[in-house]
């Protein structure tokens, strides 16, 4: 009988205890920095926190990052157009004031200057300056939308996959997540579509990747991939890099090259990283010249930036730039001195989500003052290794 009573009490109390535990665990995350740190830990250890807490954190950080304006002192106190009836006044033009002065506007030196670029709230009629004074540079190969598959490739004539830089072009690259098909879209050229339904075989490697071979024929057309891949639990490719080829066996005409591909980090993932002000290190070999090792650091935050260096037995150089969405774009002034900056660029894309495989797919087209022009493509992985994790955060 005592056992029955005890069981009854436990059954009645368990929902309350579960709710309390949930509240307690959710309550342990109090700041954006805590959330960011937790998400980073979750990226390497999916059991680090309950899914509900992780989702709450994602929401919290997404909301925190939703306002891309700096918190500046309101200028409404000194703005004559901030008062009631301002919308009916010829002296005021509400939110359009930054575009052109109102019809009857006279400059009053006693008033603070209106910022060159500002964002205004139509309800409160308060304006705040935008942080980014100049637009970010355009990615030479176009932007990669957050959360969508994206990749880059080199393209050469023939089946050798590599050629001189002058005879190598760049392309956007996309592939099916089961490896059965790919498309290469060169700059200013016709898209190269592989045959569909390529058969694949996957064997293990000892460097964290698997080797995927995909091959297919349709009449005389033949396509193949030979790739290092990272796959998820459902055997879908998350990251892939290395060799693609497509051609016609009858005419022997073929094109080939190297590639790096994945799914661009989602906006929520980017927001979480930026809200956490984390720095993430990435590294890996380039594909065309495997003697070149690339290392990049992305500093997330309000104005995310990146730096990187490429080291080869024959040369090394550095670059840096801005992060716009999931895109990484170089700035000419941030190349090292041995780079002919006005003839060079680096473009990349952040790949993957917390809890999954993360990386950077990127291309380099740089002219070095001693070595000449270099074109390459590479897939880098985030450097996270146990107690010496390279992911750092600043609260």
């Amino acid at each position: 009988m005592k056992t029955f009573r005890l069981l009854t009490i436990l059954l009645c109390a368990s929902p309350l205890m579960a709710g309390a535990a949930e509240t307690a665990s959710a309550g342990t995350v109090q700041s954006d920095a805590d959330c960011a740190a937790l998400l980073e830990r979750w990226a390497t250890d999916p059991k680090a926190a309950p899914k509900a807490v992780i989702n709450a954190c994602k929401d919290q950080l997404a909301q925190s990052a939703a306002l891309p304006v700096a918190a500046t002192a309101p200028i409404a106190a000194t703005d004559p157009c901030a008062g009631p009836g301002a919308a009916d006044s010829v002296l005021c033009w509400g939110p359009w004031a930054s575009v052109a002065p109102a019809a009857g506007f006279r400059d009053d030196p006693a008033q603070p200057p209106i910022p060159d670029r500002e964002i205004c709230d139509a309800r409160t009629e308060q304006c705040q300056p935008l942080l980014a004074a100049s637009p970010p540079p355009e990615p030479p190969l176009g932007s990669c939308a957050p959360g969508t598959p994206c990749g880059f490739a080199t393209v050469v004539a023939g089946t050798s996959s590599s050629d001189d830089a002058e005879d190598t072009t760049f392309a956007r690259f996309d592939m099916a997540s089961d490896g059965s098909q790919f498309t290469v879209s060169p700059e200013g050229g016709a898209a190269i579509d592989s045959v569909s339904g390529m058969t694949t075989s996957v064997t293990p490697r000892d460097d964290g990747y698997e080797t995927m071979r995909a091959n297919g024929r349709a009449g005389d057309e033949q396509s193949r991939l030979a790739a290092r891949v990272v796959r998820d639990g459902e055997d879908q490719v998350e990251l892939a890099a290395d060799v693609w080829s497509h051609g016609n066996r009858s005419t022997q005409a073929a094109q080939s090259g190297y590639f790096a591909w994945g799914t661009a980090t989602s906006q929520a993932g980017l927001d979480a990283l930026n809200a956490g002000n984390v720095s993430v290190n990435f590294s890996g070999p380039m594909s065309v010249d495997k003697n070149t090792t690339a290392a990049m650091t992305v500093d997330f935050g309000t104005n995310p930036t990146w730096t990187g260096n490429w080291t080869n037995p024959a040369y090394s150089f550095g670059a840096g730039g801005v992060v716009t969405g999931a895109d990484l774009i170089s700035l000419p002034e941030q190349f090292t001195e041995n780079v002919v900056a006005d003839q060079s660029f680096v473009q990349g894309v952040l790949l993957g989500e917390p809890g999954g495989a993360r990386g950077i797919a990127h291309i380099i087209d740089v002219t070095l003052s001693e070595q000449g022009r270099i074109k390459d493509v590479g897939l880098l992985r985030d450097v996270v290794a146990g107690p010496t994790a390279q992911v750092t955060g600043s609260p």
Partner: protein
Amino acid sequence: MNTRNISRFGLLLALALAGNSQAATLTLKPADGMTVVGDVIQVGQGGTVELDLQLVLASGDALPGHYGGEILVSYDSRYFDFNGFTPDGTSYFCDPLPPAGCAPIVSTTGFDETVRFGFENAYNTNVAGTLSFTATAPVGTTAALGLADADDFFGTFLLYDRGLAPYEGLQFSGASVAVVPLPASVWLLGTAVAALAARRRFRHTTG
């Protein structure tokens, strides 16, 4: 010599070295215990031919590290029966993957027979595995076992270290097998053994 010429010279040198480092030959080498005269394996009719699949480097070649690809062994089905392939530290891949897993695929067209299979993770000049055949050709026949890349368009051989890259310039070399009469010493030994056995049996019976 200006900077551009230096760069070009460096590029040519690098290409020459790269070309030199990729002139290796994947061969069917006679396994230990096989009798070889010149480059030809000698075997009696019905004897077993064992061939090591192995990379042979030319002078100045660099070791490739890990590599793999898909090969095609071709022969006359009247002269050889394929017994199997024993991998040595390598793993199979095949395309497409059969339900029972990867294994060499034997195809026959007329008298032309081929064995096709892929292997991954071979290492430098280590033996990738050993092919075994039974010589069924008539005595006096010299027959060839051909070796080639299974894809003569793109090629299937890759170098694995750091990233994947085509194994440019890889050559392939098969083997020659001569089916010979059993040597006189074998006949003498066989006769002697038979005589001894008969004598023992006779003494046992009479004693």
